[in-house]
């Protein structure tokens, strides 16, 4: 059940599960907007969970790549009137390349120093955004991002449902990519690095190169999510590149459980729905999230996903002994 840790198979029942969830979300949830928000953050949380669950890297920088994707998409759509798919592609590539370059620097350190480097980069990104305010809009962000056609020549995106459709397709593809990697030789190497980096190096794996590749890939996925965020929202608020965004993504991956790709979706879903539902009832709902986070790290390492898996295992075992 812990696909990041054990490899899993591709595709497996969780692929079907995610597909079903993506198809039914807009009908199950009160608004298409909420469903879209959930899917956007599911992709973003996936980038975080991938790094943590598969490679063992805690990155406070995924918000930076999310933000880069968001801003690049926003600038291309609003200021240069690009079509949607090319803008999304370039935004994701920009995030990926930045992640690759920063990754080359960050992986020179390990453990706590690596985490602090990602934090420093994230902060630098935010202040760089403010410094470049003639392009990014500074504290105001970029407003009035139009809904462009998928490709130039086609008609514009028909409305929130069409946007959701695009989001769901992108999310599913991202999910499949991560799942595929998890059950591949490359994935097995990443896993071995998380398990025992020194041993992996001694076996002949260029550990740094693999870490950079993983970091770049995670940057790609986060950038993709950021671009989707801009399209769905229609503007780019400055908080997409704030440190708080990185922290939010980490919270989502931990709560879902960094053990499997589908878990990231669960974590993002939980957070977004809690935010939507609780914030009107009790504005300080983040405190509950804080307790959950501490509880999960202490007690339930695999988060909600792991908890559900353990529960289903117990039920299955119970049925066997009784039967």
């Amino acid at each position, binding site marked *: 059940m812990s696909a990041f*840790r054990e490899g899993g198979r*591709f595709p497996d029942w969780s692929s079907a599960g995610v597909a079903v969830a993506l198809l039914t979300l807009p009908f199950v949830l009160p608004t298409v907007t909420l469903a879209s928000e959930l899917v956007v953050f599911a992709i973003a949380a996936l980038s975080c969970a991938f790094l943590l669950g598969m490679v063992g890297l805690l990155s406070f920088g995924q918000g930076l790549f999310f933000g880069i994707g968001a801003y690049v998409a926003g600038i291309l759509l609003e200021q240069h009137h690009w079509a949607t798919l090319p803008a999304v592609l370039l935004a994701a590539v920009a995030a990926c390349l930045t992640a690759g370059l920063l990754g080359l620097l960050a992986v020179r350190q390990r453990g706590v120093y690596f985490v602090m480097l990602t934090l420093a980069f994230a902060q630098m990104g935010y202040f760089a955004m403010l410094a470049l305010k003639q392009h990014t809009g500074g504290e105001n962000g970029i407003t009035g991002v139009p809904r462009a056609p998928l490709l130039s020549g086609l008609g514009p995106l028909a409305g929130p449902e069409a946007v959701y459709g695009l989001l769901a397709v992108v999310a599913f593809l991202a999910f499949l990519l991560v799942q*595929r*990697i998890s*059950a*591949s*030789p*490359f*994935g*097995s*190497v990443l*896993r*071995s690095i998380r*398990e*025992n980096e*020194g*041993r*992996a*190096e*001694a*076996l*002949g*794996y*260029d*550990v740094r190169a*693999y870490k950079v590749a993983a970091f770049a890939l995670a940057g790609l996925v986060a950038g993709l999510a950021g671009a989707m965020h801009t399209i769905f929202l229609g503007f780019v608020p400055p908080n997409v590149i704030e440190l708080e965004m990185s922290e939010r993504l980490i919270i989502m991956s931990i709560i879902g459980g960094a053990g499997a790709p589908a878990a990231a979706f669960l974590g993002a879903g939980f957070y977004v729905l809690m935010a939507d539902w609780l914030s009107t009832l009790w504005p300080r709902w983040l405190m509950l999230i804080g307790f959950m986070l501490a509880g999960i790290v202490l007690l339930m390492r695999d988060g909600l996903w792991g908890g559900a898996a353990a529960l289903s295992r117990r039920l299955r075992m119970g049925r066997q002994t009784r039967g």
Partner: protein
Amino acid sequence: MAEILLAAQGVGVRFGDFRALSEVTLEVASGSMHSVIGPNGAGKTTLFNVLTGRLAPSEGRVVLGGRDVTRLPAHRRVHLGMARSFQVTNIFPELTVAENIRLAVQAVSGREPWVFWREASPNEARIRALLDEVGLAERSAWRAGDLSHGGQRALEIGMAIAADPRIIFLDEPLAGMGIDDVHRTKELIRGLAPARTVVLIEHNMRVVLDISERITVLAQGRPIADGPPAVIRSDAAVRDAYLGSGT
């Protein structure tokens, strides 16, 4: 005279003010069983770390097959045919025994580790053969961390052999093993040469004197003797350095 596969020339290692190794020169003949012995703290593992690339020396050179590899990082040396096992068991405890071996094989399989679009090639026959060689065939599905100490040491050796290296470094492979395991492992190690070159650190003197062709003795970071077992056995300096230890 067999050709020299690996040579250390004037190798020295300094950690701040502390000299772990000084002017270490030795030559390992191709296909030979070469042991490195010495009292605790003599610098044997440090020497291994320099020879395998885990540590860069402060002075000196390491030459493998005529090529200067002094600054080459450990993971690159594996692809030149070097493999090692560790003194403190260094495996992947959460993964299965078979997966540990498979990773070792995969590491030297060209572009395979970078493939991300399909499943890993199972490579069953090769993995099975390796597991048989180190006696872990029945426990292949076990979690590696659940193996007995002897089993984990066997896995260490298995992972070193898996890369099909031309030179293997074994760091105290027999440490903490029971009598039966020691015998079986000794024969396994003996059988590795002459097809491969073996460099061995061991404290078990009986085994060392039995299987080695050549022995280098280190004390306080310096080589104090180098020669076949018969010579080493009667060397006064060696006996002084080893007073009380070994059998």
